């Protein structure tokens, strides 16, 4: 029977935590990277059909969503900067604003997807089945990639919401905010992925 209390690995290593987070981001980059590889393969195979499919998408909504995410990245950075300056309430406000932008993004996405469903442009839709193969693949990839991205937006929002609560309860402070930084990193990656998705599907297709 041990007589010591098990002070297991009590050391704090902020850089290690950040390193671990960056390595996790690498896995996310390669996850979407696999899809980008599939996209490149298929685009090479069906250049004209991808162009045609891209024309069906609403570029205005796509660009709007891009601005939404870019601004949300800014607010996350501002949240961190506020925490660095000891302004917990302001930091929390910025975090909740970021979550708000995330909600906006998903709402716009819902409109986009509903419009596609309405026009019969979803995987296994009878109408889609009548279109050329390349367009079927285009929309298959569109829903897969924006869907997986949307899932990550949702996860990011939940993460930032939890972090905002940790700020509120004082578990994240001016001298101990690596969790906030790591949450921000995840959110920025979600933004970067969309930065690539925009031209791939809406603009340069």
């Amino acid at each position, binding site marked *: 029977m041990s007589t010591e209390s098990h002070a297991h*690995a009590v050391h704090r290593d902020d850089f290690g935590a950040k*390193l671990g987070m960056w*390595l996790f981001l690498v896995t996310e*980059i*390669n*996850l979407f990277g696999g899809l980008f*590889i599939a996209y490149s393969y298929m685009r090479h195979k069906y250049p004209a059909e991808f162009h045609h499919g891209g024309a069906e998408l609403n570029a205005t909504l796509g660009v709007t969503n891009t601005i939404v995410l870019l601004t949300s990245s800014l607010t996350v950075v501002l949240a961190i900067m506020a925490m660095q300056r000891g302004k917990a309430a302001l930091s929390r406000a910025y975090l909740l604003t970021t979550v708000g932008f995330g909600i906006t993004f998903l709402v716009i996405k819902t409109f986009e997807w509903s419009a596609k469903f309405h026009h019969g442009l979803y995987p296994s839709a009878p109408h889609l089945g009548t279109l050329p193969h390349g367009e079927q693949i285009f929309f298959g990839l569109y829903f*897969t990639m924006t869907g997986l991205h949307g899932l990550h937006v949702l996860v990011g929002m939940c993460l930032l919401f939890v972090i905002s609560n940790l700020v509120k309860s004082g578990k994240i402070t001016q001298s101990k905010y690596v969790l906030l930084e790591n949450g921000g990193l995840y959110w920025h990656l979600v933004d970067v992925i969309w930065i690539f998705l925009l031209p791939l599907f809406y603009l340069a297709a």
Partner: protein
Amino acid sequence: MSTSTAESNYLEYEGRHSGLLGWLLSTDHKRVAILYLVSMVTFFFAGVSAGFVMRLVQLTPFHKLITAQTYNALFTFHGVVMIFLFVIPGLNAVFGNFILPIIIGAKDVAFPRLNLASWYFFIGGALIAVTALFTGNGPPDTGWSFYAPFSIKSGTNVSLGVFAAFILGFSSMLTGINFVTTIHRLRAPGMTFFKMPLFPWALYATSWMQILATPVLAVTLVLVILERAFGIGVFDPAKGGDPVLYQHMFWMYSHPAVYIMILPAMGAISEILPTFSQRTIFGYKAIAGSSIAIAGFGSLVWAHHMFTSGMSAFGNILFSFLTMVVAVPSAIKVFNWIATLYKGSVNFQPPLLYALSFIFLFSIGGMTGVWQGALALDVHLHDTYFIVGHFHYVMFGGTGFAFFAALLYWFPKMFGKMYSNTAAYVAWFFLFIGFNGLYFTMLVLGMQGMPRRYYAHLPQYHLGHVIATVGSWVLILGLLLFFGSLLYAVFRGKKASANPWHGVTLEWTVPSPPPVENFDEIPEVSQGPYHFPSEVAL
């Protein structure tokens, strides 16, 4: 008798939870390693049982033992269990977890709770795989590689099986993240990268591959599930999709995966040989560098699994060339290991015997791999028993035997007990004879043209199948002897000292079994890892 009055060892320790919960909720890397060991050996024997039945079917009186559909499900099960539940976690999960922090002078890994979570992902994935066997329309029958378009069309439980592999991938990725961070942040003061022993070097290279390659498989499997559920079309020719794209994406992970399987094994061999030669490893930097080179080049050769899939001639030639290149760093290791023994003070013990067997068996596996990399040969050898023989030589003769060697080497440290040398030698005899009887025969059968994954075979192949099946029985006997004797030793073995093999790396400086936090004080390191005091300068 505990080693100090205050600190009990990690096996006896009772913290917040006691008994079984104390093991299931422990974030101590040593306990997590034992959790992996117990579960992995269990899965290994499940895979062995499937293999046993498969071999039995190839014997005339048992040919109708099972249906062809069941046979397909069996080899799928055998592949999935052996690859995802035993060889890929492999030495990484068991010995990486147990030894890594100690050998670099740390008290635990960088993220102990994430480490426990990784094991739960592992068990979760395994449970989902088992569920896939008994629900829906029956166990997947696509082979462990789940090739499209059959994996899209098959009525069996492919989605669940593929989802199991997806969950298992998290275990691998999170372990990789943990180990890279541990190696960067928790090395003992004075232990630079080039003063680090070769096992952590191997784990470092492996972890990078786990981080970089596993997500590609994850997304490929997600695409299969989406394809089956929603018909997105990327792999379905009827919608303009391309099954060859599936193969590219699948092998982009699954080829680096084989290096994930072998590098920790090679790392363990690099630890065993210096200890039993009582001299420093030959070419330390070359071996360290070759681990990184294998990880790097291993990511460039995936399409050598696809030579007959309809790729362009240029693609075929390029990947064939790159495949030849990737063999070089492995060869460097083999030569350096052998050179380590030269003029060493050789202490012949079971770990050394199994390590030497590794070198022999892995070399056969590696060389047959090079032959398969030659385009003209591969046209004939692809999808034959030659391939099956090849990968069993590298995965089983290689990683498997290295797993056995590492277990024999680190057993006294892990359990504080010593096993019977005689039992280890007798088991080796059956293992070695059985292994070669089973798999060398497969190499011959393959060259004669016997296709793989076939339920039935033509009469001309029958003798080979009989020999192979008998070999499998001898091999299984060896496995039972091996694990049986070790299991006995865990409970009834003689007490082992802290350093029974006179090793010089840091794990041999702590008691056997180690205390919970490994070190009372973190050691300071000032010299290279394989400094043997008794070594005669050459």
